[in-house]
């Protein structure tokens, strides 16, 4: 597999404490990867390094064969706290991003494209409202529209739905699944929500607990697409997949020790498992 981005031996240290090190993984063109792990293991740091917002203490991020030196319009970020500018309207926020991508576009062209982008996330009616006049879910939609409007090669999302209520979160998950499938968007997302990861991800990276965290396992999601929250839990193999990830979060994430790793584990080629394939077939009716 030729990766579009590859993370090679990345580390973050604060003084004597190593939050994580020797983190290697790649993301192929059109692939959607989720990173799952407990709070504080360094997920946000990895995303920021991938975005180019932070430099790693070791290692590098290679995009299209070259090490990145900073943020790029090719890697759009959906921030955890939406990060909309409160003095701009929803359309203004998106238009600002578009005007950064297309320096030669007129103000009117940027505004029209912004409204088009908001329409895709179902927010055309709220284009002229300020963020303070939007609900949490609507704000996050504007953040997603802003990221997608610049047609990035890769979409980076840091727990984009964690601050939302369950109903809004579900609706947005389906919507992002649809948007990602439509445009075959390459993506990387951090989440706490196992179902969210199964819904969106082609591969799920499981990170062990910090300090000294590593990518402990890679779970390949073999469930067929298109997936929606409505059909997900009826799919054969779903429960095996879900149980596998939960087991990791509950027990193996803590037990994993990089200096005494399980047999077959190495930092540069983390074992891949496909729990949904090896699952026993559903009992026939």
């Amino acid at each position, binding site marked *: 597999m030729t990766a579009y981005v590859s993370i090679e031996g990345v580390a973050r240290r604060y003084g004597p404490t190593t939050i994580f090190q020797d983190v290697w993984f790649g993301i192929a063109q059109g692939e959607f990867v989720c990173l799952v792990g407990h709070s504080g293991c360094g997920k946000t740091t990895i995303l920021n390094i991938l975005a180019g917002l932070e430099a790693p203490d070791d290692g590098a991020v290679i995009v299209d064969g070259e090490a990145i030196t*900073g943020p790029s319009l090719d890697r759009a970020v959906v921030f955890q706290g939406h990060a909309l500018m409160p003095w701009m309207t929803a359309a203004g926020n998106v238009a600002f991003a578009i005007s950064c991508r297309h320096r030669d576009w007129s103000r009117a062209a940027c505004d029209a494209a912004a409204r088009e982008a908001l329409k895709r996330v179902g927010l055309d009616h709220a284009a002229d409202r300020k963020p303070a006049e939007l609900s949490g879910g609507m704000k996050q939609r504007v953040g997603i529209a802003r990221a997608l409007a610049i047609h990035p090669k890769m979409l980076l999302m840091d727990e984009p739905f964690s601050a939302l209520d369950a109903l809004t979160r579900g609706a947005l998950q389906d919507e992002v699944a649809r948007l990602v499938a439509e445009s075959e968007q390459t993506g990387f997302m951090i989440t706490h929500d196992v179902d969210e990861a199964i819904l969106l991800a082609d591969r799920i990276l499981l990170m062990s607990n910090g300090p000294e965290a590593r990518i402990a396992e890679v779970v390949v999601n073999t469930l067929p697409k298109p997936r929606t929250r409505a059909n997900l839990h009826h799919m054969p193999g779903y429960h095996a997949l879900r149980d596998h990830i939960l087991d990791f979060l509950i027990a193996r994430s803590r037990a994993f020790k990089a200096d005494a790793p399980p047999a077959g584990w190495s930092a540069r080629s983390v074992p891949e498992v496909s729990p949904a394939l090896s699952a026993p077939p559903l009992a026939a009716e």
Partner: protein
Amino acid sequence: MSASVSLWRSAGLSLLILALFLGAWEIAVMPKSGGGGPALDPEYAALLGQAAAQGGTTPMPGPSAIGVRLLELLADPFYVRGPNDQGIGVQIAYSLLRVGAGFGLAAIIAIPLGFVIGMSPLLNAALNPFIQVLRPVSPLAWMPLALYSIKDSAISGVFVIFICSIWPMLLNTAFGVATVRREWLNVARTLEAGRWRTAIRVILPAAAPTIVTGMRISIGIAWLVIVAAEMLVGGTGIGYWVWNQWNNLSIADIVIAILMIGLVGLALDRLLGLGARAVAWRE
């Protein structure tokens, strides 16, 4: 406690307090030669001296006398009869001109400089000691130095306004710029917005409420200081006019000047308040 009270009730109470105050004042300064009053103690009359002996006219005018004088002044506020006799409107205009010039100059320097200081932690740390030492200096302490080096009393007045209004604007701009939310800057960085676009589209609007607050503090201080500065340098302006009326012992004019200074100060503050409304944002 501070639940909204109806405007009518609060305005009514304000008017009542004003009426009581003016009424008490009027009575307090009334001639003491009442018809039905008790006979004056001769010793008390002696203490009161000349004024009482002449029938009770005190030098302190009552509100009615001041009101009459106010109408007189406002009938022709902009007359100019030679350099030492100009209407109260002309004097206020001179003061406003000085404040405008000094404040405007300070804003032109303080806001860009504050921007640079706010963006650079190094420059912030390096300039901080100077700012901390200069900021608490009374602007009037600069006056002799200004008069000595500039050799022009009018420009010295503007300089004093400049020096007193620069600090709040400088500090507030630097603070506002330095504390712009990290995530907004990260948005700009991931969009490759560039320095200039980030400064104009992100940092400036984010810091604008703090900057305008600094401007509001500055203009308040400038208006306080201009009166004192004009008393010192003389010539023109509302401060000079107050001092001149004191030399003429025109107490009514001094009271009117106090009222005018208060009203103009309020108007200036409200003006900046409108500016603050225009740049305010809410999350």
